[in-house]
């Protein structure tokens, strides 16, 4: 088991955001987390990446408890979180943003190579490589965020709504890229509003509602579940 | 005029009680002049800080210029009463009155013109205002001198004490007005700067004012201000009652302003300038008006201050001191009126009062080691200030209850 989340509880001050949530990700899987606004999807990811810490429960990554580790340590262990809302470093150029993604990497040639492949994947970024991150359009920022996340060769990638604000043609592309990354050996935990798309590429899925898991199973089954269709797929 | 609800009555009764008790203790001599002077200074500090809180806490403009306006108010008011008491002339009063009226008029007239012109840049507008104001001052001084003697005679009809007090009250108000008008002129171009840059520019303002005051006898030609030697001969007439009433007025004005559409516009600028302007709020105007009102209170407090110890010295308004109101405002809780007033009193009573009394002999210099240490501990324990966002019920804006549902709601429910 690559990642095992066991009954975690997370609070924002007095707000109980996650209640006894458990889920897991196997090596090489794509797992989708879906749920309505405010269900706690982003909160789950933030907890995994160490930006938040659970009050109870455990998070095990490669057999090691990481629930109390700091975010920067967790990155070192191989988990990368591409946060909701892109979070590009506005005053840094596109190039520098990518370099920040490779912060823990020390091999200069490897970094150069990674940057090249990022530019191949997103030619738009290459055109804009010296533009300040903050002045990119929304979609360009999203591409940059994903590319930046890939720079550190993560074992597990947490993607928070990667398709938000992207043109349809890009959405398709992004999902292809996710699959491709996955094929190259990175496990993926995917949070998406575009549930249909997400479920179509995921192996398994969890459905969250107001801070708890209400349904889990193979992606195919979840997609066919009537209440999911009702609630999230726009039946 | 005021429809009093329960909280208002409660507040006013409380205020009267506080006033009465302190006044009684002062009259009885239980609060001796050591403590009563500190209480007066605390009250004045509360007014200055409330002005700053309006500018910074509520409108988000980081100003270090409050002490500059405080100084302007202090010297303006002092000059008026000095001339009245020592030279038996109302010329200070008439000239400054005329200046404040004509400058105000000039500003309004020019504003009328400028607002009709489309796309005027700030600096050009500023140049226009400046020219207008200079002309207004020129005319006002002549006019003021002209009517000085008749006005003096008029005031002399009153009993001496009454006349002096009336002159004093007008002087304090004029101190505020002049500070407000200066802040308009200064704020007009400078408020377009981003927050920290505005802070630096206003710090510059405080220093410029201090330097000018240092040279007020030579450069500005006000001999009686004696520049860096310190101005003496100002009557000491500020009392607890006066300070209290002005403080009360300040609190009520700020509270009423904040709990209105204007106040919300002011606060929205702090929250998000772009969103505010996109919602139809004239950001430049509200920044200016807030700055003017805040500075007005600064000047007003200066007028009161000048008549406490009867002595003014430019060093009182040096830039290191100008952090004091900022400390008070943050200490009390940014954007909390209650906090500011509480912090002002706490700050003055502890720093000047308690610390003086508790330090053992030979440790006098430790007062300023303990003070920043307390400050640090406070900031670490309560990073959002003593009161955070808390307001006493009278000041707090209450979210009105939902009114009975209307016919519309049916339709809304359907779609939502």
């Amino acid at each position, binding site marked *: 088991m690559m990642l095992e989340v066991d009954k975690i509880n997370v609070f924002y001050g007095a707000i109980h955001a996650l209640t006894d949530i458990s889920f897991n990700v196997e090596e090489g899987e794509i797992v989708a987390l879906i749920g309505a606004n405010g269900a706690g999807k982003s909160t789950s990811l933030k907890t995994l990446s160490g930006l938040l810490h659970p009050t109870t429960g455990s998070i095990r990554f490669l057999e090691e408890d990481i629930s109390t580790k700091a975010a920067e340590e967790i990155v070192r262990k191989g988990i990368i979180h591409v946060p909701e809302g892109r979070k590009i470093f506005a005053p840094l150029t596109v190039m520098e943003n990518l370099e920040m993604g490779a912060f823990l990497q020390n091999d200069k040639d490897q970094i150069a190579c990674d940057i090249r492949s990022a530019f191949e994947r997103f030619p738009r970024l290459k055109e804009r490589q010296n533009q300040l991150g903050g002045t990119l359009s929304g979609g360009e920022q999203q591409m940059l965020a994903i590319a930046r996340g890939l720079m550190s060769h993560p074992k597990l990638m947490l993607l928070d709504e990667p398709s938000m604000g992207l043109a349809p043609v890009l959405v398709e592309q992004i999902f292809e890229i996710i699959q491709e990354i996955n094929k190259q050996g990175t496990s993926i935990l995917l949070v998406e509003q575009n549930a249909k798309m997400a479920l179509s590429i995921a192996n398994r899925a969890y459905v969250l509602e107001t801070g708890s898991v209400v349904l889990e199973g193979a992606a195919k089954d979840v997609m066919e579940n009537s209440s999911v269709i009702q609630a999230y797929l726009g039946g | 005029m005021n429809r009093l609800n329960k909280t208002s009555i409660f507040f006013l009764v409380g205020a009267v009680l506080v006033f009465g008790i302190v006044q009684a203790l002062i009259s009885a001599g239980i609060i001796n002049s050591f403590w009563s002077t500190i209480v007066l200074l605390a009250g004045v500090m509360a007014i200055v800080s409330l002005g700053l809180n309006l500018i910074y806490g509520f409108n988000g403009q980081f100003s270090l210029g409050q002490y500059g306006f405080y100084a302007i108010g202090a010297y303006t008011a002092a000059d008026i009463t000095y001339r009245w008491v020592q030279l038996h002339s109302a010329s200070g009063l008439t000239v400054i009155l005329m200046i404040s009226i004509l400058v105000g008029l000039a500003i309004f007239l020019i504003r009328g013109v400028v607002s009709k012109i489309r796309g005027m840049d700030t600096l050009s507008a500023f140049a226009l205002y400046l020219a207008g104001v200079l002309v207004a001052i020129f005319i006002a001084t002549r006019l003021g001198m002209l009517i000085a003697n008749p006005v003096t005679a008029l005031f002399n009809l009153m009993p001496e004490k009454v006349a002096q007090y009336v002159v004093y009250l007008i002087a304090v108000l004029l101190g505020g007005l002049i500070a407000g008008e200066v802040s308009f002129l200064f704020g007009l171009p400078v408020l377009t700067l981003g927050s920290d840059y505005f802070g630096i520019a206003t710090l510059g303002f405080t220093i410029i004012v201090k330097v000018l005051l240092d040279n007020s006898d030579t450069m500005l030609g006000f001999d009686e201000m004696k520049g860096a030697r310190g101005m003496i001969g100002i009557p000491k007439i500020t009392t607890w009652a006066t300070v209290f009433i002005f403080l009360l007025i300040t609190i009520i004005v700020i509270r009423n302003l904040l709990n209105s559409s204007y106040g919300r516009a002011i606060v929205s600028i702090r929250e998000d300038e772009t969103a505010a302007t996109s919602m139809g709020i004239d950001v430049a105007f509200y920044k200016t008006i807030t700055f003017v009102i805040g500075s007005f209170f600064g000047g007003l407090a200066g007028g009161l201050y000048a008549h406490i110890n009867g002595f003014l010295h430019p060093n009182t308004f040096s830039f290191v001191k100008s952090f004091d109101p900022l400390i008070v405002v943050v200490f009390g809780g940014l954007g909390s009126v209650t906090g500011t007033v509480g912090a002002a009193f706490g700050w003055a009573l502890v720093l000047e009062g308690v610390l003086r009394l508790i330090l053992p002999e030979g440790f006098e210099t430790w007062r300023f080691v303990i003070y920043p240490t307390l400050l640090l501990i406070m900031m670490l324990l309560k990073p959002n200030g003593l009161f955070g966002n808390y307001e006493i019920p009278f000041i707090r804006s209450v979210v009105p209850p939902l009114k009975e549902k209307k016919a519309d709601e049916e339709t809304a429910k359907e*779609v939502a």
Partner: protein
Amino acid sequence: MAENTNTTPILELRKLCRYFGGLKAVNEVDLVLQPHALNGLIGPNGSGKTTIFNVITGIYEPTGGEVVFEGQSIGGLDPYIINQMGIARTFQNIRLFPNLTVLDNVRIAYHTHAGYSMSDAIMHSKHFDKKENELTEKAQDFLRVFNLQDRQAEIARNLPYGEQRRLEIARALASSPKLLLLDEPAAGMNPKEAITLMELIHFIRDKFDLTILLIEHQMRVVMGICEHITVMDFGQVIARGSAQDVQKDSHVIEAYLGPGAAELSKQYLKERKQ
């Protein structure tokens, strides 16, 4: 919906340009919005849609060309004046007044209609009380429309994303616009929520007699409700017309919709008929 072209347009962009240095973010765009129409603006990421909004609302000055609103040229005016003339917007990255209550967010937008003077406010006059009550009721009405009335005392920053988006639209409406610009209103919503929002947009258009221009990437929303769609790429208009027309356009398919478009379009049309 009457698609007549005789009426004077509410907004007209004439050869509008906006450059950033050498980058032509918006390049000679012409656009005409008829009153009461629901218009869509789509295009690949970075094609200049948001920039057009920013120019219309006065955040940016146009580099060239004209923005004409109800017959007046408004290019380069201050944003607040443009808003007061009747154009309101929402932002791609939500920009609420984060530390204020939901109610105050809406009351602020309604402030130009407060109807009392500053001295009324300071003196707390009778007139003030009356007007202030009216204003509050009005604001609460807007909240009801968006089903946010139970949230009125909440601090805006603490609302979930979807509600923040709705609040932003409510706030924009409170400034009584004639033209409403929505920048990706359904971003971050799931399809179900997006459809609900779509209906809501329809509803407010009719109720408040608005013209609407919206940017959106969820084709379901755009194709579902927009009567007229303009497609941009590289700062220029590459296609315009009804949903059907646009979807068939080969440029649009290539640049924006992607190869899966044909299938999608059928589906959206079906949905729309329902």
